[in-house]
C-alpha cells in the first residue's frame, strides 16, 4: 500500500530528474536519447496499465491517444513557441503538453462511452478502430501536415521533462489505485456485476480510467513529438499500440512496478533490435505467445493472481 510518503517520493523523483537533466549535456547523445525513450515508454505503459490492467478494459488504441496529444502539442509549439523568448519556452512547452493531454483525454472520453456497453474483445476492436480513425484524420488534415506530418518541432524534451512526467504518471496511477476509492477499479476488473451490487458504478470507473489513461498517453505524445522533432501519422499505427500492450503484458497487468521494469527493458533493447528488421516483431510475437502459454500473469508478477479475466 502506498502511504503518504508517496508525495515526498514524487517530489524527490522530480528533483533528481531535473538535477540529472542539468548534466545531460555531458552524456553520450545516444544514451541520452534512449533514456528519454525509456521515460516516454514508462508514461505510456503505466497509463495503459490503468485501463488494461487495473480496470480490465482491454484497449488497443493507446497509440491513437498518443497521436492526439503529440499532434496538438507540436502544433501549439510550432505556432506559439518557436518565436517566443527563451524564458517563456518551458511554460509554452508545459502548456502544450497539458493541452495535448486534455484533448487526448476528451478522445478517451469518447472511447470510454462505448465501453459502457461493450466488453472484452468487442472493446478491443472498437479501441483499435478509434486509433485507426484518429490516424486517418491526421493523415487527411492539411493543418497537421497530412501524410508528411509535422516537421521542425523544437527539441525540448529533456531527461528532466521525461522522467519528471514519468514520476508524476506513476504517482497518479499508484495513488489512484492504492486508495479505498481506487479499489473500485479492481472491483470492476474482477466482477462488474458484483461491483455494481456493492454500489460501485462500473461505468464511472471505466470512463475515468479511459480519460486519465488517455491524458497521460497524450502527454507522452507531446514529449515524443518534442523528442523526435518530427511526427508522421504512420508512427502511431496499430503496431505502436501493440508495443505498449506488450510492455503491460510482460510486466503483468495491474502490476505497476512490473510494467515499469518491462517498459525500461523493452525500450532499451528496442534500438539494438531495430537492426533485426521484421525479425524484431517476430521476437515480440513469440514473447507474447510464450507469455500467454507459460506466465499469463506477466514476467514480473509474483502475486497469487492468475491472469486477467475476459
Amino acid at each position, binding site marked *: 500500500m502506498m502511504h503518504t510518503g508517496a508525495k515526498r517520493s514524487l517530489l524527490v523523483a522530480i528533483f533528481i530528474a531535473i538535477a540529472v537533466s542539468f548534466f545531460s549535456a555531458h552524456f553520450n547523445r545516444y544514451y541520452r536519447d534512449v533514456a528519454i525513450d525509456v521515460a516516454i515508454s514508462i508514461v505510456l505503459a503505466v497509463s495503459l496499465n490503468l485501463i488494461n490492467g487495473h480496470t480490465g478494459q482491454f484497449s488497443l488504441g493507446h497509440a491513437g491517444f498518443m497521436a492526439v496529444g503529440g499532434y496538438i502539442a507540436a502544433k501549439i509549439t510550432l505556432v506559439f513557441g518557436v518565436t517566443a523568448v527563451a524564458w517563456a519556452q518551458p511554460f509554452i512547452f508545459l502548456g502544450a503538453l497539458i493541452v495535448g493531454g486534455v484533448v487526448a483525454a476528451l478522445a478517451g472520453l469518447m472511447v470510454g462511452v462505448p465501453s459502457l456497453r461493450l466488453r472484452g474483445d468487442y472493446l478491443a476492436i472498437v479501441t483499435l478502430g478509434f486509433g485507426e480513425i484518429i490516424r*486517418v484524420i491526421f493523415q487527411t488534415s492539411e493543418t497537421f501536415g497530412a501524410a508528411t506530418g509535422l516537421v521542425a518541432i523544437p527539441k525540448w524534451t529533456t531527461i528532466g521533462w521525461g522522467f519528471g512526467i514519468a514520476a508524476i504518471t506513476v504517482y497518479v496511477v499508484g495513488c489512484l489505485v492504492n486508495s479505498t476509492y481506487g479499489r473500485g477499479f479492481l472491483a470492476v476488473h474482477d466482477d462488474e456485476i458484483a461491483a455494481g451490487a456493492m454500489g460501485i458504478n462500473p461505468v464511472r470507473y471505466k470512463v475515468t480510467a479511459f480519460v486519465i489513461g488517455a491524458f497521460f498517453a497524450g502527454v507522452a505524445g507531446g514529449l515524443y513529438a518534442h523528442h523526435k522533432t518530427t511526427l508522421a501519422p504512420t508512427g502511431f499505427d496499430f503496431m505502436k499500440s501493440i508495443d505498449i500492450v506488450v510492455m503491460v503484458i510482460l510486466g503483468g497487468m495491474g502490476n505497476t512496478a512490473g510494467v515499469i521494469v518491462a517498459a525500461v527493458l523493452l525500450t532499451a533493447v528496442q534500438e539494438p533490435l531495430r537492426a533485426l528488421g521484421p525479425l524484431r516483431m517476430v521476437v515480440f510475437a513469440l514473447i507474447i505467445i510464450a507469455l500467454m502459454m507459460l506466465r499469463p500473469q506477466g514476467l514480473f508478477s509474483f502475486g497469487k493472481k492468475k491472469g486477467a479475466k475476459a
Partner: protein
Amino acid sequence: MEILQQLTNGLALGSIYALIALGYTMVYGVLRFINFAHSDVLMLGAYSAFFLAPVAERLFGPQTIAGALFIIVIAAAICAVIGVLIEFLAYRPLRSRPKLTVLITAIGVSLFIEFTCQHKSVFGADTKSFPKLLASRDVAIGGLHFSSNDLIVLVLTAALLAGMWFLVQRTKMGMAIRAVSFNEKAAALMGVNVNRVISYTFAIGSALAAIAGIFYSMRAPGIDPLMGVQPGLRAFIAAVVGGIGNLPGAALGGLLLGVIETVAGGIPGVSNYRDGIAFAILILVLLFRPAGLLGKSMVEKV
C-alpha cells in the same frame, strides 16, 4: 447509372468481405474469441495462389478455368491445414484460460505470421504483382460495365455462401457446429466431439479465407505479407455489424460494408476518410445495437 455502377462494384468487394467474415463469425461462434490470425490465413491463401500459378499454367495452359479452379482448391486446402494447425498449436492449449489470454495469443500469432513472412528468406516485405489467373474481359449489361472476373467472383461467392448455409443448416457436422456454439459443455455431454468440431470450423473458415484472399488479390494492385490486415479488419467489422456468431449476419454485414465503402469512396471529400468509414459504422452499430444487426442480445445471468 454512376451509382448503380458503384453499387455493383461495392457488391463485388462486399461479397469478398462476406467470405472472410464467415470465418470470423464461425470461430467466434464455437470459441468466443476473435481469431486475429484469420486475416493472415487470407494472405497465405493469396501467396499460395501466387506460387501455384506457374504450376497451373504448366498443367492446364495459361489462364484456363481448370487452372484457376486447381489453384483455388489447392490454396484452400493448404490454408485449411494451416488454420487447423494454428488452432491446435496456439489456441487449444489455452482453451480453458480466460478469453483475454486467448485474444492476446491470437494477436501474437498474427504478428508472428506477418513478420515471419516479411523476412527476405520467406516472402519478403515488398509488394509482388499477383498473376492473372483468368483473362478478364469487359462485359456490358444494360449500360453497366463489369469485368468478367468481378462477375465470376460474385457468382462463386454467392455459391459458396449458399453452400455454407446448406452445410451449417442441413448436415450433421453443421448441426454439431451449431450445438457447440450454443453450449459447448452440453454438446460434449451429448456425444459431440468438440475438438473435432472446432478443428473442422477452423478448416472451413480458413479455406474460405484463402479463396477470399485470391479473389481480393485479383482486384488489388499486388500482394504483400501485410495485405490481409485491412480486409481482415473490415471483414471482422462486418461480422460484428451483422451480429457475431450469425452466418447470414456476416454475409449481410460484408455486403453492406463493401457497398458503403465503395459508394463513399466515390464521393469527393469523403474518399480521404475511406479507411475510417468501416470503423465509424462499427461504432455506430454497436452503440445502438450492441448485438449487431441480426444478433440476439444476451444478458448475463446472475
